[in-house]
């Protein structure tokens, strides 16, 4: 025991008597202590159980290196890790390792475990160097399995929420992109769709359900399919939005907000006639072949909360070489709150459109939004673009 002047350490006699060791022996987490040569000088029963030994004594007697050989050890991305990559070794190399999440497979049985390995140093009182490393292994297999299961369900649901393919529109191109926000919110509320709506007409839909997780996923599916069904029944854009609003109002209370933008594109000679109807959704951007961009549509009430809704059908035109861009608020809201990309930022990006294919334009916007968000999105991103061929229709 080292004592410094003025800081006499009064050691508890119980701890001297090995009570501390008894405490460590009985904690649920596996704990080992190794020296700088890799020799294990202490292990508790939980560590012996985890590493496949009958007793802590058997474990501490095992030769260094032979223990690790019993397992396949990978990081979360599936890259194999060796002993040198373990936090304890890194401590002895003078690094300050973060807790490490590892997937651990017992070679003998194929059993899979997920472990968090934490190592902390015990300095040698004489030299001040690191004499020992204490390893704590936390078994999070259950948590991890649940998380992976949920993620699988989420991905499956997400695929059901978006169309598998977009229809062909003569003399025009359609592209879409979708990017879900962080893994905690796996299923987002953004959706888009494109389908025929009467002769020579197509309906472009983009929308956003406020909320995350399975409930939002359910509402998102309801929104997309209600709009499709309403379209098949021959409803106008306004009627389709009113139908969806009523469907949302019949949901159990919980204020499910939904925004939607409908664009009816009807083929006319040399151009497309557009009818843009907004319900709480940011206005689409129309970009001409020189890159001049403007917003189209008039604000309308979002769906599912307030009665009655008030929406307006606005007429416009998409001429040869022009592009119409629909998006969700994840694009303008990307970034830190005091410097979001903004509607203005998006319009600036659209000015680059003439030099890019439609697919490249969408990809570019998505990339800039992601860069703006510094890899940490608040919300999903969805983009849907319609571009008329440069040569006029006949």
């Amino acid at each position, binding site marked *: 025991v080292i004592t410094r002047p003025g800081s006499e350490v009064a050691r508890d006699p119980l701890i001297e008597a090995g009570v501390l060791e008894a405490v460590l022996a009985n904690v649920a987490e596996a704990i080992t202590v190794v020296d700088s040569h890799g020799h294990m000088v202490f292990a508790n029963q939980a560590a012996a159980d985890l590493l496949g030994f009958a007793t802590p004594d058997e474990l501490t007697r095992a030769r260094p290196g032979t223990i690790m050989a019993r397992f396949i050890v990978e990081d979360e991305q599936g890259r194999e890790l060796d002993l040198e990559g373990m936090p304890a070794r890194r401590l002895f190399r003078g690094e300050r390792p973060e807790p490490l999440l590892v997937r651990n497979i017992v070679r003998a049985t194929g059993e899979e475990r997920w472990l968090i390995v934490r190592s902390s140093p015990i300095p040698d009182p004489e030299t001040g160097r690191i004499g020992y490393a204490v390893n704590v292994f936390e078994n999070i297999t259950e948590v991890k399995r649940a998380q992976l299961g949920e993620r699988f369900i989420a991905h499956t649901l997400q695929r059901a929420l978006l169309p598998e393919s977009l229809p062909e529109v003569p003399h025009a191109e359609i592209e879409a992109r979708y990017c879900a926000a962080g893994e905690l919110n796996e299923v987002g509320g953004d959706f888009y769709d494109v389908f025929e709506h009467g002769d020579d007409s197509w309906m472009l839909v983009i929308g956003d359900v*406020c909320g995350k997780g399975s409930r939002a996923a359910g509402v998102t599916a309801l929104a997309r399919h209600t709009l499709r069904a309403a379209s098949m029944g021959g409803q106008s854009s306004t009627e389709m939005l009113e139908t969806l609003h009523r469907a949302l109002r019949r949901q159990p209370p919980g204020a499910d907000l939904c925004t939607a933008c409908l664009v009816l594109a009807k083929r006319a000679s040399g151009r497309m006639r557009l009818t843009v109807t907004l319900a709480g959704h940011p206005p689409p951007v129309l970009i001409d072949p020189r890159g001049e961009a403007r917003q189209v549509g008039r*604000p309308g009430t979002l769906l599912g909360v307030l009665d009655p809704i*008030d929406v307006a059908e606005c007429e416009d035109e998409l001429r040869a070489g022009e592009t119409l861009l629909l998006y969700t608020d994840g694009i303008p809201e990307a970034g830190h*709150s005091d410097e979001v990309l903004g*509607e203005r930022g998006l319009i600036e990006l659209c000015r680059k459109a003439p030099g890019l294919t439609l697919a490249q334009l969408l990809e570019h916007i998505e990339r800039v939004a992601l860069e703006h968000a510094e890899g*940490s999105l608040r919300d999903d991103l969805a983009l849907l673009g319609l571009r008329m061929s440069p040569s006029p229709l006949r």
Partner: protein
Amino acid sequence: VIVGEQLTIEVRQERDRIVLTLHGELDLLGAPRLQSEIESNTVDAAEIVVLDLDDVQFIDSAGLRVVLAAHVRTVERGQKLALTPGSPQVQRLFSIAGVSGHLHTIASANAALV
């Protein structure tokens, strides 16, 4: 999640109303805080509820959802809800959402409700 300036809420009783002054960001993280204030007994007991949004730097759809939930709740309970206009970003979001006509806006937290 990008963590911005955390939302703080000041609650004070004025002559005829309760005023909730919001500072910071009314986003996914701040929204639940406002929600629980709105559902508190003090707010329930007031005849007039004012949300002072003038110092809200940023609002997103989660924030909007709570403001609308407050609107619905106060209507159901026979209370009056009023908001101060807030920053251009807040106003733009309400405008896009098409809800400005449903919400009662007053120039400042102690202005009269017409």
